[in-house]
């Protein structure tokens, strides 16, 4: 194994790793500050923040240092390389670079949305000086709110790292952003009439290490230090991007991608990023309802769940049907399926098909909008987070799971006395025509988050939670099981689905997803990989049974 020296510590690395000085320093836990370098983007070495001293070990063992500082992001580390990233010379260069970057920076941190998670703030505090020596007026440039539908540019805050430009050229391939003018007049801009509205555009806001590119959706909504993050998984397609759900006082404010090389890499699409607003919709199902002859007889969970359990248990087993949803977590599907199969082995279990919208959308794209190889990001056509997980549970409990149309056909032909329908897809999962089929079933249970064609027909209406309100596991298109965590509480009256089903099954104690996963892993061989209970930040593969390697975690300010 090749060996190199960073800050007088020897590191070993694989010859295939192709490390630069920043990555090599990370091996000893040392942070080399950087703005323009990003592991997914090409190297431009333009910000000069990562300047380090580099030398070489000669065959006779002497070390020869290069006289000049070199950009660490651009300098490969090979056998015998000596990197000095904390010498007085390097520190002086870092302070000087920051002073230059701050020359024309407006220092409007109080009104800047990035304040608190800003690379310029963090590095200035750590490596910079506490005052400016500039006596001239600052170079003010006009703000541009026309960059995109979701993106606004505060031109004067920009430090010209060009991460956003490289993202639109290399990852989305749409190349809307470019640098106009040169020298001190340099600015990021779009071509007239061609805003940056591609489906990955929101990522440029995350990539911006300062507060220049801001999301219009989040602008001035919150100060970031008030936000609490929960690690979760984007539910909007089967890619299963790792995200964080940022909330304050039980209000979700934004979703941000979280690095996960197993799932999606560093980014997420705008459909997912802004597609969670149904969580705050006014018409969400707010209270559980028990109806008799069209009249509501109870609004209380404590009455409804025991009554429902009793009614289901007194129904003949082969006349109970249940429709599971690909929006359920593995735990919820397991709780419902095991509860019903305990009543009888002959219950008819089905799973609703995951909505397919168009075809997989691959990036980068070329000039004509055709996907280019190699694919760097895919928005999948399958718009459901957990079709594979629910399928695995269902295959265990039902030898031959039905389809949704089969189950509804049986319902309309009067073969069912009880039908348990689980929704959860905010874009609608049942048509009015399909809902007609359940009219012949005497006992209809609907567990959903939004009103649908079937919710007025239900004898029991159970309001559940969205992905931000639940704990559990989603299995993505490739069989990667990832945990979602509750970020906010359900609206008053609604309950997370896991808790509803736990209480419905009459299990003692409280719903605990990690504990339940151990039980699931012991029961279902296909899900044996969940045996650890806690799956870590990057999830586990179901099929290969291997734990994914830990992610290359980002340095402060780098993934923003």
């Amino acid at each position, binding site marked *: 194994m090749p060996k190199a020296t960073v800050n007088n510590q020897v590191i070993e690395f694989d010859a295939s790793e192709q490390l630069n000085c920043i990555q090599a320093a990370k091996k000893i836990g040392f942070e080399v500050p950087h703005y323009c370098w990003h592991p997914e983007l090409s190297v431009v070495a333009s910000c000069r923040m990562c300047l380090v001293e580099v030398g070489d070990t000669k065959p006779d063992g002497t070390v020869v240092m290069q006289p000049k500082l070199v950009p660490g992001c651009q300098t490969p580390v090979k056998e015998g390389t000596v990197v000095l990233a904390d010498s007085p010379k390097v520190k002086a260069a870092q302070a000087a670079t920051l002073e230059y970057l701050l020359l024309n920076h407006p220092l*409007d*941190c*109080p*009104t800047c949305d990035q*304040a608190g998670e800003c690379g310029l703030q963090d590095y200035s505090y750590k490596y910079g000086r506490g005052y400016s020596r500039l006596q001239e007026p600052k170079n003010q440039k006009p*703000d541009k709110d026309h960059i995109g539908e979701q993106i606004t540019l*505060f031109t004067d805050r920009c430090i010209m790292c060009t991460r956003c430009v490289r993202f639109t050229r290399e990852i989305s391939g749409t190349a809307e952003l470019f640098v106009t003018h040169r020298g001190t007049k340099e600015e990021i801009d779009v071509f007239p009439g061609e805003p940056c509205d591609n489906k990955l555009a929101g990522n440029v806001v995350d990539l911006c290490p300062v507060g220049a590119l801001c999301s219009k959706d989040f*602008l*001035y*909504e919150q*100060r970031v*230090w*008030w936000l609490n993050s929960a690690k979760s998984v984007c539910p909007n397609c089967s890619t299963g991007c790792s995200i964080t759900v940022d909330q304050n006082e039980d209000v979700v404010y934004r979703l941000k991608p979280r690095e996960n090389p197993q799932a999606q890499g560093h980014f997420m699409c705008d459909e997912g990023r802004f597609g969670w607003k149904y969580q705050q919709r006014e018409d969400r199902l707010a209270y559980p309802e028990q109806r008799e002859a069209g009249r509501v007889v109870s609004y209380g969970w404590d009455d409804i769940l025991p009554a429902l359990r009793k009614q289901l248990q007194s129904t003949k087993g082969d006349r109970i049907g249940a429709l599971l949803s690909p929006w359920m977590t593995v735990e919820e599907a397991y709780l419902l399926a095991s509860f019903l199969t305990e009543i009888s082995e002959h219950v008819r279990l089905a799973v609703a098909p995951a909505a397919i919208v168009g075809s997989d959308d691959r990036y980068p794209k070329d000039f004509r909008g055709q996907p280019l190889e190699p694919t760097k990001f895919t928005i999948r056509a399958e718009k459901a987070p957990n079709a594979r997980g629910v399928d695995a549970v269902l295959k265990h409990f039902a030898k031959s799971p039905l389809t949704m149309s089969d189950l509804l056909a049986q319902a309309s032909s009067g073969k069912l006395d009880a039908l348990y329908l689980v929704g959860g897809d905010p874009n609608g999962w049942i048509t009015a025509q399909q809902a007609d089929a359940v009219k012949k079933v005497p006992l209809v249970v609907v567990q959903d988050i939004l009103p649908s064609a079937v919710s007025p027909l239900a004898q029991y209406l159970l309001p559940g939670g969205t992905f931000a309100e639940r704990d559990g596991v989603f299995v993505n298109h490739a069989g990667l099981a990832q945990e979602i965590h509750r970020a906010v509480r359900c609206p008053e009256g609604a309950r997370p689905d896991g808790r509803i089903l736990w209480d419905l099954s009459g299990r003692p104690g409280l719903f605990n997803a990690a504990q339940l996963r151990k039980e699931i892993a012991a029961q279902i061989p296909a899900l044996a990989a969940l045996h650890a209970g806690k799956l870590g930040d990057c999830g586990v593969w179901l099929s290969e049974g291997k734990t994914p390697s830990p992610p290359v975690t980002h340095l402060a300010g780098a993934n923003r």
Partner: protein
Amino acid sequence: MINQSTDVTWVEEPEIGFWEATFLPAIISGIKTTLGHVGNGKTVTQQYPEVKPNLPLHYRGIHRLNRDEQGRVKCVACMLCATACPANCIHIEAAAAPPEWPDRDKFPATFVLDELRCIYCGMCEEACPVDAIELTHIYDMTGETRESLNLNRERLLEIYDQTKDNPRDPIRTRRGKLGPAAEFVDLPAVGPATAVGVAERSAKTSSPGVIRPMGPDPNK
């Protein structure tokens, strides 16, 4: 941190002597103090509200929101006051500044300060990067409901308009240098902030109504 035995000093209770056991020396010294106050002729009682107290310069009363040179609210809605506030009494909703304000990005669309919840610690004033929020010397504020003391942006600006010319409440801080308040050594007694009728006893004192009555005047 665990205390080391060397950090601990053991103190023994002093032995009580004969005279101390009779309690007579303590009683005599107590009577001496009492009699000293009876006979010295100094008045301690404050004749409030006829006579206003001479409050110290750093007295912290209710807040005001300062205006800038153009009369706009100076606050930039950075919410540092709300962050610093230990009582959680400041609630701000920010919005993009109107297009007529080209020099501003952000301004407070709503600014609500719960004066009942406030503990008057002055941290908001200290946190403010643009010197927009300041505490005045007004201390006698009343309201009929709790909601009436949730002061909103307009009300806080109104207090600024009322107090800015008062010698006790000059604009205290300016960016980078101390305001005129730094040079004051003594200030006149503050008048009442609540409405004072002409016929009322407190109106006949030497310094009536220095601060304009706030809210609707009950005498009108």
